[in-house]
């Protein structure tokens, strides 16, 4: 009897070991993310065929996003400058640099990256999210990490080895970029009051509706149409910049010719792109202050004041901004929309309908190290 039990136990042990070896050796079969949906008004999106959306990639990407191990000093994670409650911005004009100063640009919100421009960073220097993902990690002033050293650190972790295996296979920089890109692609904000309005579930207040109409209109004094002209750069449903080619980049009149930064021109080499920056999504804009690529405006009121009478003319300024004026008489000394205070308040009220509390608090997007899974 004892022999039988012993043989059975050994057989079970051999089987278990065999299963473990096989499980480790086999190619990973990741689970496609099946049940995500997005409003049809967001339009088409494309996921790179060599980096499909999978549950395992998302879980790995989420861990990496929140792990300070990704930085050289093990103190800075992606989430340091991309805080969920602030729609993945950090509330600062410019994020602090590792060397003590501040970075060149304001931290960008991460929402609905499956749509809108297919170039990333304020100056569009990354042509895909996969390209983008590794840049801050290796940037000396952002996370200051040597990518090979990081791969060694991750390989030393049994947890990460397992997560990489399940999602992709080996621990490599490419798979790290793929996982972070997958996590970022799934940060979908589609449950704001505006979304509910588009789905016919709620009504906007009279002021919000007034603001929505102004948002969508390019002013035309010839037919007495008043407008805030937002839609000339921010698409009507996504509220991001446009997707086609470089349509989602613009010079919005912040600086004079003498101090105009290169912006997109640094990437394309085309002088017609000088001072162009990425038009950001306005989703959750009420929680992503301060505003603009350099965080120069502290409030939405400041932003409206800029567009209303603070436009600075330079050669590459968008003609749509230069030409948009609600006042029929010739301009005085300022360039801008010349709306009433009430109209600006209405647009700001509409912008507040873009705040998506469910997105800002979605546990799936939160840190997996804070008791989450």
């Amino acid at each position, binding site marked *: 009897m004892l022999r039988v039990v012993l043989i059975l136990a050994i057989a079970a042990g051999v089987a278990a070991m065999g299963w473990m070896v096989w499980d480790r050796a086999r190619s990973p079969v990741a689970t496609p993310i099946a049940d995500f949906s997005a409003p*049809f*008004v*967001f*339009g*088409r999106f494309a996921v790179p065929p060599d980096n499909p959306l999978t549950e395992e990639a998302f879980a790995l990407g989420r861990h990496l996003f929140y792990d300070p191990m990704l930085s050289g000093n093990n103190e800075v994670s992606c989430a340091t400058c991309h805080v969920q409650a602030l729609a993945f911005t950090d509330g600062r004009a410019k994020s602090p640099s590792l060397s003590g100063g501040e970075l060149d640009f304001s931290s960008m919100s991460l929402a609905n990256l499956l*749509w*809108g421009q297919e170039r990333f960073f304020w100056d569009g220097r990354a042509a895909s999210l996969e390209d983008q993902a590794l840049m801050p990690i290796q940037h000396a002033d952002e996370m200051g990490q040597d990518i090979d050293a990081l791969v060694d650190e991750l390989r030393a972790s049994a947890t990460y080895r397992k997560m990489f295996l399940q999602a992709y296979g080996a621990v490599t920089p490419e798979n790290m970029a793929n996982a972070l890109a997958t996590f970022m692609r799934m940060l979908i904000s589609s449950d704001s009051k505006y979304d509910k309005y588009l789905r016919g579930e709620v009504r906007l207040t009279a002021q919000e509706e007034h603001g929505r109409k102004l948002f*969508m*209109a*390019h002013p*035309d004094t*010839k*037919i007495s*149409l008043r407008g805030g002209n937002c*839609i*000339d750069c921010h*698409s*009507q*449903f*996504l509220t*991001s910049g*446009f*997707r*086609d*080619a470089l*349509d989602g980049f613009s010079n919005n009149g912040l600086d004079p010719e003498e101090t105009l930064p290169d912006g997109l021109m640094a990437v394309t080499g085309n*002088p*017609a792109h000088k001072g162009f920056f990425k038009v950001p999504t306005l989703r959750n804009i009420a929680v992503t202050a301060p505003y603009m690529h350099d965080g120069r405006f502290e409030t939405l009121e400041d932003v409206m004041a800029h567009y209303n009478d603070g436009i600075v003319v330079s*050669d590459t300024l968008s*003609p*749509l901004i*230069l*030409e948009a004026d609600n006042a029929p008489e010739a301009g005085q000394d300022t360039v801008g929309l010349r709306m009433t205070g009430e109209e600006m308040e209405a647009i700001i009220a509409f912008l507040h309908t873009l705040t998506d509390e469910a997105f800002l608090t979605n546990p799936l997007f939160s840190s997996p190290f804070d008791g989450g899974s």
Partner: protein
Amino acid sequence: MRFFLGMLAGAVVIIGWVVLNPGQKKPMPITLTFHAEMEGEPLVYDQFVYDNPGGTGQFRVRDFRFYLSNLSFGQGDQTFAEPESYHLLRFDNADKTHSITLPEVPLTSIDTVRFLIGVDPAANESIDVRGDLDPNSQMAWNWEVGYKFVVFEGALQVDQDVSPLVYHVGFSENAREVAFSLPADVLTEANGQIHLTVDPTKLFDGIARVDMQALPSVKFNRSDAAMLANNYATMIAPAF
């Protein structure tokens, strides 16, 4: 003998039908290539090199694009209409051209080509994404109005003064049909390639001649929009 002749006649009819029936031939690929040209040369962006057609000063082009829709080809009384036929033509590339390729056109030859500059009313009033129609694109105005059909943006320089030019033409009534005949054998000789020129100057220099200084923008004013539409109706011409 009569039986044999009958058989022969039948065979001739069947063979002839098989050989000559257009439906039996393979569908052919067709490419339309549009060349943006002003003053007979490829369009130059971002430089003050063009004269104001109806007044003084020079203008530069920052953006020029338009929707072409409902493309169809005819051969005698047969017609092939491209499904979901909505194309955004833009020319900000090295060749200043835009090509539309239809891999399979089920006609043996083509004698007419038709399309709209603009968007048909049903699609213009919809927010469905189809073809190049995208309600989140720069070409969308808003739900109430539909799409911009033709966009021309730039600046006018008179002496040292530079002022913006913004021409956005939409409204369903401003779609214009373009139709032309193809000379026989043009397609076979050109291997399915059809070349066309697009002259943006025609917007301002057609039935009506526009002084850009007097009319620096057209957006929602319907009579201004109709005037530019009547002008752009002739901006595309086949180049054989």
